[in-house]
């Protein structure tokens, strides 16, 4: 009805409730913004694309895990993942990620919580923590952040009421985008400093367009827990490229765990969508996450951002066609052409990594000394981190095709050189081998060694 649409259009935001900086419940926000809220709730839907989206797998509820539906298990689908992560919680359970509605449940009920005691820091990216942080810090989110980080997950959990929610991205008064995560604020400050920009503050210095990616960069990033206080840290002070990040870890001598089969000081990479996107032509062209994953759509007489955050392949018309006049079928084919090519390299780099792990294991079992194995172990660490960086990145190469291929190239070269050092002790690797110190002996109270967290 035209008259109705026109009135909606003139009055797009009827404020029926008063929102404050303490309003946590998205349903309350939804009273003022029903269109966004209805879409937000649809993130429960599970639809598969060729290489993304997610698939609903029925699950028989148990006491430990009451979920009736989960997403597909990646470790079951590709057992090489278990070899790569041997001795680490990820080997126990790693699944395809799904919509924002599940962020909290999937974290609480993952088997990784069973095989290892996880820290409260985890909540930063899976729960609505803005209000809890404020409360715990008496108004200072950094203080609250520190308090949450240090708790065991089981305790921190008591403070979590919602999955990622409106207040995590928006200012309640202006609805402007806002970065609420200390981890991102510190990470981007370190990154900008590496580029010569001092004291960067995204909330006052970023453009609106940048904020349309920064709010996502609060979570869709590589991270680690620094020191015994488990401070959530984004390792960007040398830059955001995979090799710059691994160089950072080498410098600080960090390991996530010690590989069970080989004894290598290994690193796990997680969902570096923000970092990869940053290397691609879309970022360079000013195209932000929200442009593709939350494109505008018309609801009644106005345009709203599609808060059903999901694979753009399920939404090609709005996500791509504004900028690319190709038919939907062609756009889909372009995404898949990039992804298929990417997966070819992924397969091969993965096989090489697993071959190195096998060779190392055999060498260790054959009685080679730590000194004899050091080079190969370091190369395993590097090959795996680089491989995992690309593997954990969820766009299957799309966000930055040339860069993803470059990282896989570096990974396979490291794997093959690792195999060479085992067969020929005189072989000189092309990267300098760094000695990684042993993990700290005393775990923080209530939390397992770093070796088992994440």
């Amino acid at each position: 009805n035209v008259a109705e649409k026109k009135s909606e259009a003139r009055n797009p935001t009827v404020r029926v409730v008063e929102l404050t900086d303490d309003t946590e419940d998205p349903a309350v926000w939804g009273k003022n913004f029903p269109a966004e809220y209805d879409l937000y709730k649809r993130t429960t839907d599970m639809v598969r694309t060729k290489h993304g989206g997610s698939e609903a797998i029925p699950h028989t509820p148990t006491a430990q895990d009451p979920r009736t539906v989960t997403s597909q298990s990646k470790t079951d689908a590709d057992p090489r993942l278990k070899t790569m992560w041997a001795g680490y919680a990820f080997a126990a359970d790693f699944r395809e990620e799904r919509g924002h509605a599940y962020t909290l449940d999937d974290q609480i009920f993952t088997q990784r919580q069973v095989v290892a005691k996880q820290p409260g820091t985890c909540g930063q990216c899976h729960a609505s923590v803005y209000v809890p942080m404020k409360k715990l810090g008496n108004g200072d989110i950094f203080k609250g952040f520190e308090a949450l980080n240090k708790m065991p997950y089981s305790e921190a959990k008591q403070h979590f009421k919602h999955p990622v929610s409106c207040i995590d991205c928006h200012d309640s008064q202006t609805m402007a985008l806002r970065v609420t995560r200390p981890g991102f604020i510190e990470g981007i400050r370190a990154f900008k400093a590496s580029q010569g920009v001092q004291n960067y503050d995204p909330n006052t210095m970023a453009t609106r367009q940048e904020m349309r990616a920064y709010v996502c960069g609060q979570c869709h990033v590589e991270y680690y827990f620094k020191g015994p206080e488990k401070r959530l840290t984004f390792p960007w002070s040398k830059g955001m490229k995979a090799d710059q990040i691994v160089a950072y870890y080498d410098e600080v001598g960090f390991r996530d765990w010690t590989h069970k089969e080989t004894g290598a000081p290994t690193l796990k990479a997680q969902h570096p969508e923000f970092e990869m996107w940053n290397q691609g032509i879309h970022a360079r062209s000013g195209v932000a996450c929200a442009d593709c994953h939350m494109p505008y759509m018309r609801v009644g007489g106005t345009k709203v951002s599609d808060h059903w955050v999901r694979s753009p392949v399920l939404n090609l018309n709005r996500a791509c066609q504004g900028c690319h006049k190709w038919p939907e079928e062609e756009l889909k084919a372009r995404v898949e052409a990039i992804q298929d090519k990417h997966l070819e390299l992924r397969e091969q780099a993965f096989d090489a990594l697993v071959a190195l792990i096998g060779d190392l294991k055999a060498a260790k079992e054959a009685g080679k000394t730590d000194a004899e194995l050091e080079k190969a172990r370091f190369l395993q660490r590097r090959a795996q981190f680089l491989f995992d960086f690309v593997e954990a990145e969820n766009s299957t190469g799309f966000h930055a095709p040339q860069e993803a291929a470059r990282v896989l190239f570096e990974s396979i070269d490291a794997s093959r050189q690792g195999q060479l050092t085992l067969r020929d002790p005189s072989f000189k690797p092309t990267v300098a081998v760094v000695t990684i110190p042993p993990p700290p002996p005393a775990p923080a109270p209530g939390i397992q060694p770093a070796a088992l967290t994440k």
Partner: protein
Amino acid sequence: MPIGSSLLSWPLLLVAGTLGVAAGVGGYAFAYAKGTSYLGNDPATCANCHVMSGQYEAWQQSSHHAFATCNDCHTPAAPVGKYLTKAENGYHHSMAFTIGGFPDVIRARAGSREVVEGQCRHCHAAVVDAMTAGGEVSCIRCHASVGHLR
């Protein structure tokens, strides 16, 4: 108010406009190349300059062919602003066309881009109310093809 008009400086424009119509070379081009077309609204008259014919064809294929003519997008809606922008464009284009020295692939100046952006908002105010609440956002970043199919 359309953003574009606020950026143009009055005195400079008046001078430019006068020059555009009166000055020797520019004046000749203006008359010969049917420069008076600047005063009307018929898109075909923009295409009097063959260098505009690519844009003219692309406009004919665009979604806005039925809704908007050149001036709807390239001159601000406010009446004074409209003729000032035309005068400025007229001057600029006549000079450029006659003397040459403009690139083979023409590109919009920052000022004219702002005029266009203002015009989008002018016609679509209702639709984009919610999204523009936060301030700066470029329409043609996503809708580059509405005026000219690209």
